[in-house]
């Protein structure tokens, strides 16, 4: 047989016939090419492959290919049909190597149109490789396909069907559906099976053609031929998936399917369909899959298949992959339909057996499936817990990943201790890519199931230690929150644990250092109780080590520097050393750290009296607030707006919209406060002193103070403390919106430190203002709005837009006030858009409202950063609905006060 084949191949390759025909059919037919320019015969496919393979470098290969492509193009241009088949075949090889071959598309179509089977075979192959449903040439191929589908030769029909099934576009599907439907009823099994797959493709491209194939499916399930049976079931499956109505229609076939499956399982050895002792696994799996779809949520259908599923589950040989493939599919079906409890247990046990299999593939499949069923049948899966934990140590990373996910799904209050122990030891040795996910999940699980706070703290610390630098920021935040919320005994314990780590740990695990410095600073009073008591010198030495280490990140240093301030206030003996450290940071290269350095130095010198109260212990976090901070990075504006009162205190520096939207109201309020306090200063110069001397807590700060708080009523839930915090962080963060280099979560925390410490003390607000009004802090204050005057930028269509300005270095904050100047017309969906020259950066904050009743007004803040002091110009686009009628307008503003950029 093979020798015959060789002879044929040789014949094709030599193309004896073609050479003969060349004489009969010369190029000069067209009279375009003189004899001497004529190309030599194209080289054979085999020789081309040899040439390409013998190329030693990529460049050499490229040159061989380019040369050949040029030759092929030339023969294509000459409309030569003798060599077309060979040339297209070569082109397909070249295409596989990654070179462009689209110029062969038309030639494929010509081959398909040829009457020769050899041409068609290569032509269709080329069409499947070079064309797909997106190409326009399909109009041309459809006609050829139509002809070939009617061909008397079954193999020509077969080629056409196969191509249609691979590349049919919706248009082709529509045009050829009739033909396919006819062939689906053909008496020839070879054609019928391919037509069935074609029908699947056609339906997926044009769903409304589904009904057309429905009658033809009637006989498919009573087929003897396995090819037709399997493709028929594929067709029915895709119909059921596509349309619920059809699904109901096929419910009645459950009996047939059960019979087919029974025959396969019970029948003796049939050599034709046997795979390692299993009778036609391909068909069995298809039937099982369709049964699953039909039995899902249908008690009666499920009832009918219970027995056969049990039979397949118990009778299938599980030593080979093929048997396991069937068992796997059976398990999926059992778990998906409304099967009996016993059967479900059997299914989970099969998966349990899979887990013990040495074959990695089987293990993987088991874990994957258990993960799917764990929520339906937790108890049954729990029984295999030890085996699953064993998989955490598997050599295969994909198996470990699955096992890890499954372990987290299995944690419950009763096993949380043992599970967490295993998972933490997994975390210690896990790849970096696992650590972040695993540690986050550990934290969630610990929070959900922790038996007590001590264990919870212990677990979180272990997670942070085990995961090293891969710990996500939210884990750090959660741990700090947990410790801050817990009782004194736990805090004391945490301090002892963390001090031990802090004093001995290498400086390269940032998250641990962050938690440790925070806790040791906040609860520094417990340090004296650790072991034999920690001396002040020891503590400062550790902080110095962190602050001067090049291994520590800027965020860690931020934690450390703030923590050292707290330390100084709790351990007065460390004051001078801390002051020294802090003042050195006044010239740090990192802006944020420098800022802190300068501020904290001020607290040591000029405002020493405020230091103690400012650095009071923080009240426990509000839980939801932390959530907001966690979400902030990915938050959408809507969520953040809803959380606005809470987020107010966070005031983080992120440039994202959500936070920007939150910032808007607080800003206006603090301005009001500034103005108000300015007035106060004139009339009652002794106010700050009076308040400063007022005792804690804020209840005792006198009536004047509460008047101020009343004025801040608009601030939402935050109250006086929050507004004070806002003010402080505003002056502190004069880096403004551009300061985004730091992780959001840690920034929040730092701000929280400040906000909350000030929230204990309303006088800090006032004190701060005194500082501002005397201009003694090196933080620039905002000039009042009237310095630049106001600018009416738009006044038409009953709408008036006025801008007022505030500038802080290069950052200008524009307050846009839009007023509805009509007396009757309601404005809705007001949208203000603006653009500035490229060298400037623009940020539009969310407006206070989008609708305006008559005579009402809204405000919107616009931030413009102009570091190059360029001339400020702005293009505006406005749109709104006036009583439901859309109005759009544009405008350009060129008359901004020059003082905004000339300073």
């Amino acid at each position, binding site marked *: 047989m093979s020798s*015959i084949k060789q002879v*044929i191949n040789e*014949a094709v390759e030599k193309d*004896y*016939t073609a050479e*003969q*025909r060349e004489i009969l059919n010369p190029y000069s037919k067209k009279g375009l090419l003189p004899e001497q320019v004529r190309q030599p015969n194209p080289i054979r496919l*085999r020789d081309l*492959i040899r040439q390409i*393979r013998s190329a030693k470098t990529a460049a050499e290969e490229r040159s061989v290919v380019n040369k050949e492509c040029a030759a092929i193009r030339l023969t294509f241009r000459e409309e030569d049909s003798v060599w077309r088949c060979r040339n297209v*075949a070569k082109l*397909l*090889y070249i295409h*596989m190597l*990654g070179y*462009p071959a*689209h110029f062969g598309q038309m030639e494929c179509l010509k081959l398909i149109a040829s009457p020769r*089977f050899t041409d068609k*075979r290569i032509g269709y*192959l080329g069409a499947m*490789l070079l064309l*797909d*449903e997106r190409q326009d040439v399909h109009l041309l191929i459809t006609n050829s396909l139509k002809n070939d589908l009617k061909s008397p*030769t079954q*193999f020509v029909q*077969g080629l056409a*069907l*196969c191509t249609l*099934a*691979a*590349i049919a576009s919706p248009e082709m599907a529509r045009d050829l559906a009739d033909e396919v439907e006819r062939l689906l009823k053909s008496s020839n099994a070879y054609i019928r*099976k*391919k037509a069935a*797959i*074609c029908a*699947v493709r056609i339906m997926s491209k044009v769903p409304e053609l589904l009904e057309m194939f429905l009658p033809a499916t009637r006989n498919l399930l009573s087929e003897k031929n*396995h*090819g037709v049976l*399997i*493709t028929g079931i*594929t067709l029915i499956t895709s119909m059921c998936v596509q349309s619920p109505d059809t699904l109901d229609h096929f419910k009645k076939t459950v009996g047939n399917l059960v019979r087919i499956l029974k025959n396969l399982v019970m029948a003796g050895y049939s050599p*034709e*369909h046997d795979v390692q002792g299993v009778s036609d696994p*391909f*068909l069995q*799996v298809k039937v099982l*899959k369709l049964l699953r779809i039909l039995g899902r949520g249908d008690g009666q259908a499920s009832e009918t298949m219970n027995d056969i599923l049990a039979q397949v589950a118990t009778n299938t040989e599980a030593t080979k992959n*093929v048997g*396991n*493939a069937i068992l*796997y*599919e059976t398990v999926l079906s059992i778990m998906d339909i409304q099967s009996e409890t016993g059967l479900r247990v059997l299914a989970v046990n099969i998966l349990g057996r899979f887990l013990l299999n040495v074959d*990695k*593939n*089987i293990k*993987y499949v088991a874990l994957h499936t258990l993960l799917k069923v764990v929520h339906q049948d937790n108890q049954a899966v729990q029984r295999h817990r030890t085996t699953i934990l064993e998989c955490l140590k598997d*050599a*295969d*990373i*994909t198996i470990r990943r699955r096992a890890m996910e499954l372990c987290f799904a299995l944690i419950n209050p009763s096993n949380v201790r043992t599970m967490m122990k295993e998972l933490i030891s997994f975390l210690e040795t896990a790849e970096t890519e696992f650590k972040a996910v695993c540690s986050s999940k550990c934290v969630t699980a610990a929070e959900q199931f922790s038996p007590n706070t001590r264990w919870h703290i212990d677990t979180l610390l272990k997670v942070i230690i085990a995961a090293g630098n891969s710990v996500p920021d939210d884990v750090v935040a959660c741990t700090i929150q947990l410790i801050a919320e817990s009782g004194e005994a736990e805090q004391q314990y945490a301090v002892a644990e963390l001090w031990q780590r802090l004093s001995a740990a290498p400086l390269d695990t940032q998250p641990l250092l962050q938690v440790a410095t925070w806790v040791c600073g906040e609860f520094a009073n417990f340090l004296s109780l650790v072991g034999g008591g920690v001396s002040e010198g020891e503590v400062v030495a550790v902080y110095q080590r962190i602050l001067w280490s090049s291994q520590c990140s800027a965020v860690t240093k931020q934690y450390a520097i703030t923590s050292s301030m707290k330390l100084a206030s709790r351990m007065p003996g460390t004051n001078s050393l801390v002051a020294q450290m802090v003042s050195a940071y006044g010239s740090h290269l990192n802006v944020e750290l420098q800022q802190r350095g300068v501020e904290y130095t001020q607290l040591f010198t000029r405002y020493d009296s405020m230091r103690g109260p400012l650095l009071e212990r923080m009240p426990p976090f509000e839980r939801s607030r932390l959530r907001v901070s966690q979400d902030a990075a990915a938050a959408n504006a809507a969520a953040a707006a809803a959380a606005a009162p809470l987020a107010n205190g966070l005031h983080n520096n992120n440039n994202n919209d959500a936070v920007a939207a939150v910032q808007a109201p607080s800003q206006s309020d603090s301005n009001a406060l500034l103005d108000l306090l300015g007035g106060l200063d004139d009339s009652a110069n002794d106010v700050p002193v009076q308040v400063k001397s007022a005792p804690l807590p804020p209840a005792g700060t006198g009536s004047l103070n509460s008047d101020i708080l009343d004025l801040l009523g608009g601030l939402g839930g935050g109250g006086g403390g929050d507004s004070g915090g806002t003010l402080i962080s505003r002056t502190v963060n004069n880096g403004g919106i551009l300061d985004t280099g730091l992780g959001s979560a840690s920034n929040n925390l730092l701000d929280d430190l400040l906000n909350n410490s000030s929230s204990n003390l309303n006088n800090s607000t006032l004190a701060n203002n005194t500082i501002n009004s005397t201009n003694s802090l090196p933080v620039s204050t905002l000039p009042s709005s009237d310095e630049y005057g106001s600018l009416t930028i738009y006044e038409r269509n009953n709408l008036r837009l006025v801008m007022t300005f505030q500038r802080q270095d290069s950052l200008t904050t524009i307050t846009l006030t839009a007023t509805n100047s009509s007396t009757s017309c309601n404005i809705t969906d007001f949208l203000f858009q603006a653009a500035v020259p490229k060298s400037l950066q623009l940020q539009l904050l969310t407006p206070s409202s989008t609708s305006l009743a008559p005579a009402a007004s809204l405000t919107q803040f616009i931030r413009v950063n102009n570091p190059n002091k360029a001339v400020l110009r702005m293009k505006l686009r406005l749109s709104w609905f006036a009583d439901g009628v859309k109005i759009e307008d544009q405008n350009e503003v060129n008359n901004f006060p020059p003082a905004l950029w000339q300073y």
Partner: protein
Amino acid sequence: MQFMLLFSRQGKLRLQKWYVAHPDKAKKKITRELITTILARKPKMSSFLEWRDLKIVYKRYASLYFCCAIDQEDNELLTLEVIHRYVELLDKYFGSVCELDIIFNFEKAYFMLDELVVGGEVCETSKKNVLKAIAAQDLLQEEEIVELALRDLGLI
């Protein structure tokens, strides 16, 4: 099945069959990504990976990797059987098939695949039937050649 790729241990593509349309560029990118990922895997690892929203099933036979991309609800273990069946068929056809057979007769390898899998679905579960269909089509080609030769020689 969404596509099937055959490539060598050196990362050279030997066969590609796409049942879902992608632009050429995307196909190349997918191929490159998968080849590097799979070649980087250790022999002890499982034959499956999750890649984008697909499951990738691959198996190595001598110097060739056979790699299939299947949908989430498809059976990975059975896909290994489909691959194995394809290798068996090639083996029967070429007679202890090796990579070179597939390089030099790539079109035959495609023809074989098209008889086993149509439009991404298995359409014939009997080895005998597949080989019969291929043999019959080869014969058809052979007859054409003979006929043409005779015609050219003026005998018919």
